[in-house]
């Protein structure tokens, strides 16, 4: 090999090593930055605890017996060792209902992101990739959907489709799709315009390589932030819908529905109204803190 060839070979080697180092350290830097944010870490811990409690509920309670079955002799019991939060007007253990209610809320929340993310990626990526009139039409439609307030949209969809679980998820997913497609589109567009993508193209890199190596890793950040916000928002929306009677129906425990029942009882049994509310606040707060922390950790500009 000539001198120049040896140089370029070792140069390539160095390049490969650098690339590996770079990829690993990018996630690491973001994670380190996130770790420093105490509030975000608090949010992460609280949410993890909630997840554990909700998923492990069957270890402490029996769904049918504690949350569904009515024990009219046990109505309105005060908090005691047997029933840590007391019982409701049908004698059901309040704590059990709150925890199982959490399952529903989380399930709906995650299902909502899946739906809105899938549709959002399809719409947003197509708009960004094809550009031109496709982009225009898709974005005009998105604007129209966005012009309708979120709760109203969900309400309309549920009214039309009915309130089975599947329809609820569909309704919530659809009402979150416009925002998600907007996000995906701007993430993809923003990146394709960057110089380093143009540089990659000029080096002869294939489109798929560009998409996977450059676009996706950079788009994941804002999408992740939006995902936490979407789960938080959908917990609030589903509870609102259930509160007005359009969401999850009895006797399935759901925080909003529980609050709706508690309203007539709260004069003398405030715990029925407080407990589900606190549950909602805790879940949404932890997600919001986490989302904010993620957003700050992904932002390359330092805060100070």
């Amino acid at each position: 090999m000539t001198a120049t060839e040896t140089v370029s070979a070792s140069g390539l080697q160095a390049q490969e090593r650098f690339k590996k180092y770079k990829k690993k350290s990018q996630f690491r830097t973001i994670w380190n930055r996130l770790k420093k944010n105490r509030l975000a870490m608090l949010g992460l811990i609280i949410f993890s605890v909630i997840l554990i409690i909700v998923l492990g509920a069957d270890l402490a309670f029996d769904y049918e017996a504690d949350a569904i079955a009515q024990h009219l002799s046990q109505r309105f019991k005060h908090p005691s060792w047997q029933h840590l939060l007391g019982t409701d007007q049908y004698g059901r253990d309040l704590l059990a209902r709150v925890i199982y209610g959490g399952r529903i809320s989380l399930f709906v929340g995650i299902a909502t992101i899946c739906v809105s993310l899938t549709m959002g990626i399809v719409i947003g990526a197509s708009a960004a990739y094809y550009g031109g009139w496709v982009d225009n039409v898709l974005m005009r439609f998105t604007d129209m959907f966005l012009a309708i307030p979120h709760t109203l949209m969900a309400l309309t969809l549920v009214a039309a489709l009915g309130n089975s679980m599947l329809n609820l998820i569909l309704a919530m997913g659809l009402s979150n799709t416009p925002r998600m497609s907007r996000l995906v589109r701007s993430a993809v567009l923003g990146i394709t315009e960057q110089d380093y993508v143009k540089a990659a193209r000029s080096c002869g890199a294939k489109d798929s390589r560009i998409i996977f190596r450059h676009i996706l890793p950079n788009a994941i950040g804002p999408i992740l932030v939006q995902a936490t916000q979407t789960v938080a928002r959908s917990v609030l929306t589903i509870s609102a819908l259930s509160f007005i009677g359009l969401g999850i129906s009895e006797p399935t425990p759901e925080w909003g529905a529980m609050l709706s029942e508690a309203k007539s009882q709260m004069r003398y049994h405030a715990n029925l109204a407080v407990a589900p509310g606190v549950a909602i606040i805790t879940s949404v707060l932890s997600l919001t803190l986490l989302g904010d922390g993620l957003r700050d950790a992904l932002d390359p500009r330092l805060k100070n």
Partner: protein
Amino acid sequence: MIRGGKSVLRYIVKRLVMIIPVMLGVTLIIFSIMDLTPGDPAMMILGEGATPEDCAALRVEMGLNDPFVVRYCRYIGNALKGDFGKSYRTRIPVFQEILNRLPYTLCLAFISIFIAVSLGLPIGVLSAVKQYTIIDNAAVGTALLMTSMPSFWLGMMLILTFSIRFKIFPPLGVDSWKCFILPAISTSATSMAALLRMTRSAMLEVIRQDYIRTARAKGASECRVIFRHALRNALLPVVTVVGMYFGVGLGGAIVIEQVFAIPGLGQLMVNAIRDKDVPMLVAAVLFAAIIASLINLVVDIMYAYIDPRLKSKYVVVKIRRRSAS
């Protein structure tokens, strides 16, 4: 002094023209979604004892068998004349019912956005200027709590405290102005918290800008720097969002009306859904959505007056044309 008056007018007209397809789109979306509702309207109107022939005849009479486009255009045509159909349940013109209810909901929505703006913005500014102090931490903490709180739960807690415990405000109904206080506070909480956080972060962003440093280098007092330089720049992005939060407030009002038994549009919608009264529901949702869009438009126009970069975009074009000719 309003500079560039004519060019701002041009911007307003442009925006007004653009809002029409958006509103048509909104009506189309709502109409098509509601079209998916299962059930036979004719049966609902005539009641259980109706024969299939009667139902079929009524369907033809109401034009329910026509293709979608025809029905949609007919609906829009009628709507523009003020005819939104008759309620399936009460046979009263829908428009009348909505007009009865609308003022309460609008009142609630406007009061709530007013509270949100007049509390959220100043506290956000204060929080940013006194970053990391107790005021800032308290404000941000409270705001975080309020964004995580469902408005109807806040409403219930307020009723517990101020209506049941302390008997200051009535919990239900619309008999006096006092009845609007608790509902308005409940609806405004989310928007206020969001506006507070937005204002705070916008101010923090602006204070770090170079032109703030220039202002300080001129010898301006800190007070002047904040109010004359930072504030106006920071409020620009916040103003654009106020319109959106009006829409959020409108959505919140729907739920709050259930808590406080306010006979507004929200209650109308909920009843209509329960009774499967499609014309009522379509009209109610339509009204709400259109009003939200119009408020957004108003906010956009206001923004044009505040941000000189938008104004001058049209003035510059004029100058270029003049010098070219």
